[in-house]
């Protein structure tokens, strides 16, 4: 049975009630209940096929739940367009256009988020410097390494300064340097609510203050990261499925 811990850190960012998601006969999510408060950094961990990415996709409104309700910033599913500019997402896919330059990618997404021209230019400059790509700002993304693309992808995800950042295995394919730079950038955004799907248990424990441990479409444990039993719970679930979990 899930241990439910609702921390009281500020505004309620997300409330999920009885979320089910089926793909044909496959039940990806089986009645997820979740409440996320402002400023939390949550890791969702679990073996492959546990439903982690599906849950994140529903939160990102990339897919709809088969059943259940989801409120983000107090807004229900059908009015989600109003709060979309408060959500950002960083995935293992870069969400970048290879034939555009780093700056053009940021400008394009900034415009879609309705940012004013002057503010957008300033924000682009700031973020490009921040992710260490200032010298490559005018180069097409297709010439970037995986690590550079992922850093630019983080800049793209936060171009509109979202209140909720969704991270779907953001460290995939990154070397140690790129991974550490990414980690620093994420930690710096301490006021932002973050939900990260990851297979990296060490990072989850180091960065996050709350862990959702999922198995077979359910949240089986919802614990604070410094709970003495948290690692035991996580290992028990994550190694239960043929050792698919990367430690």
């Amino acid at each position, binding site marked *: 049975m899930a241990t439910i811990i609702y921390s009281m850190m500020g505004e309620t960012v997300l409330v999920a009630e009885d979320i089910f998601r089926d793909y044909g006969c496959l039940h990806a999510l089986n009645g997820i209940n979740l409440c996320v408060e402002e400023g939390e950094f949550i890791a969702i961990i679990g073996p492959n096929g546990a439903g982690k990415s599906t849950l994140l996709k529903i939160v990102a*409104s990339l*897919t709809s739940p088969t059943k259940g309700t989801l409120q983000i910033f107090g807004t229900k599913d059908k009015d989600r*367009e109003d709060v979309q500019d408060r959500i950002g997402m960083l995935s293992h896919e870069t969400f*970048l256009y290879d034939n555009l330059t780093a700056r053009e990618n940021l400008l394009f*997404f900034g415009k879609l988020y309705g940012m004013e021209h002057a503010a957008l230019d300033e924000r682009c400059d700031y973020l490009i410097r921040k992710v260490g790509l200032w010298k490559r700002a005018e180069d097409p993304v297709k010439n970037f390494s995986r690590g550079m693309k992922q850093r630019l992808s983080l800049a793209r995800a936060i171009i509109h300064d979202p209140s909720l950042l969704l991270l779907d295995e953001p460290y995939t394919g990154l070397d140690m340097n790129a991974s550490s730079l990414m980690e620093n950038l994420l930690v710096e955004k301490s006021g932002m609510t973050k939900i990260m799907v990851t297979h990296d248990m060490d990072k989850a424990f180091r960065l996050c203050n709350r862990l959702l441990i999922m198995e077979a479409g359910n949240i089986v444990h919802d614990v604070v990261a410094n709970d003495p039993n948290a690692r035991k719970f996580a290992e028990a679930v994550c190694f239960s499925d043929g050792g698919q979990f990367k430690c």
Partner: protein
Amino acid sequence: MLKGLNIAFKDLKIESRAREIFISMVVFSLLILIIFSIAFSDLLSSASKTATVTSGVLWICFIFAGTLGLNRTFATEVQNGCMDALKMCPIPRNSIYLSKVIFVFLLMLLVEIITIPMFSVLFNYQFTAIIWVGIVILLGSFGFVVVGCLISALVIRARAGEMLLPVLLLPLSLPVIIPAVSATSGLLRGEDIFSLMSSIRLLVVYDFVFFAVSMLVFEYVVED
């Protein structure tokens, strides 16, 4: 909705650099013209026979070149998961569709602007009602692109989606192809525009209905 139109500008910018889609559309279209001009060389001495067969040739060029463009139009969005990023932006999802329609329609227009003079030279044909021919081609191309973009979005994630697109698109666009070919043929034969009004009306209705339906259903087409 206007914010979403940045997607069309972005596509034009990418295409102006890569020129992947446009070049293949133009080359394909000119190749068809050349092949048919050789195949029908015996008919080219008679203006009336030329007019009978050439509207079909023109529309074959436009439709197959258009299909090439449609095949690639959503590919840039699927690559690197950009479609998900667009879906997360605070824009109506049908503005993604509208942008794609504008982009492919502009590409088709450019191809047509190149193809028609070449057609005139290779088939030794003097256009008399060029404005009406232009209007029919615009209406026909728009109807084709409207359906094509919807089908393209539908099949882009499917296995062998590029094969599936023409299989689904050509039957669905027949209601636009038939009146377009028939009106073009009539105009090339020098028929009075009023005798072709039924075909033109059909084109307008088809364009309007399919555009409205596509704008309504696009959101569900791109849903996972």
